[in-house]
């Protein structure tokens, strides 16, 4: 929630003709909010992989999708180019994104906004019928929760209901 600079700072500075340092460009890219989960940034989610200098003095921003079919990738590319005019955006698939890359700060922000953050990834392929352990209701903190569907409002989330406060909530799936 507190990027070093707001996402539109790059544009403002570009209009002023000021050339940003690589560190400044990194901070701007890191602070771009995720279009589907705007409470967290690209850096919080681990989607931002790198910000590199180009030979011509510009920057290259490297991102990776959470899931292969993530429909937010086009919006993320546009948002980065808006925040950093002239930047090239490269998408890589390898190494594959994992919820382990979601930062502690990102996990706290998700919880604050009613989304249960992922637990630790224990194996590549969870055995069938294994209920993820340790899922707690992000509203009341109860561990008495029930999995409603393995697929929630986006591919990266599952839908749960809390048996204590009866509220439904999203849980970011371990992957």
């Amino acid at each position, binding site marked *: 929630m507190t990027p070093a600079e707001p996402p539109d700072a790059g544009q403002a500075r570009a209009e002023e003709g000021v050339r940003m340092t690589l560190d400044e460009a990194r901070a701007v890219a890191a602070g771009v909010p995720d279009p589907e989960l705007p409470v967290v940034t690209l850096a919080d989610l681990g989607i931002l992989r790198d910000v590199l200098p180009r030979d011509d003095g510009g920057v290259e921003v490297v991102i990776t*999708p959470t*899931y*292969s*079919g*993530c*429909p937010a990738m086009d919006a993320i590319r546009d948002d980065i180019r808006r925040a950093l005019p002239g930047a090239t955006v490269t998408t890589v*698939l*390898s*190494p*594959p*994104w*994992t919820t382990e890359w979601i930062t502690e700060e990102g996990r706290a922000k998700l919880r604050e906004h009613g989304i249960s953050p992922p637990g630790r990834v224990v194996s*590549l*392929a*969870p055995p*069938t*019928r294994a209920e993820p352990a340790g899922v707690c209701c992000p509203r009341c903190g109860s561990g008495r929760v029930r999995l*409603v*569907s*393995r*697929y*929630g*409002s*986006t*591919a990266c989330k599952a*839908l749960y209901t809390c048996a204590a406060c009866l509220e439904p909530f999203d849980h970011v*799936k371990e*992957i």
Partner: protein
Amino acid sequence: MIDALEIGDDCLVLSQRLAEWVTRAPTLEEDVALANLSLDLLGQARALLSRAGDEDDLAYLRGASGFRNCLLVEQPNTDFAHTIVRHLLYAGFLFELYAAHPEDEVAAKGVKELAYHRDYAALWTSRLGRGTEESHRRATEALTALWPFTDELFEGHQDLRAPWQSWVTEVLEGAALPVPAVAQRTGGRRGQHTAHLTSLLTELQGLHRDHAGATW
């Protein structure tokens, strides 16, 4: 090595089939789940078909005989049981294929997604098989209709049959669904498809045929 055209076509065609459920699945949760399965496969299809050539040309400009997908994925949705059983059989295969190719970046990413697909299909197969008399009857019919297309999955992938068989058998036994003794059909990998692919492509390619080069 993963054949980008064969597996890319499998993913594209199955993605389209699953998307046909959107707004008409039995419950809202399953509507969302099937759409998410479709989306994962579409992402994998795009990455694989881009490796084989131009993804748009490959998706929109080929006739049925140009497609190299297996016959299983083009089979119609029919009902929820058919959709689940088809996904059980195919996701079980694709999971093994991806797991066997960790050096391939599409597979290394896709295997984690397919682990969830496999799990989803297994849980529903168990519910349908052990649910009501009607759900058991429909699951049995689906298995009888779709089992004939399973041999083809292993053309060129014989090493994957044993792990697939062991997983599928365990799920089916747990669901009280016996494996049917039915004759096998192949041909998709050689471009010899069932008529179902033609009608699927009519819908998939319709917009491009009517408005070539249209952009969003």
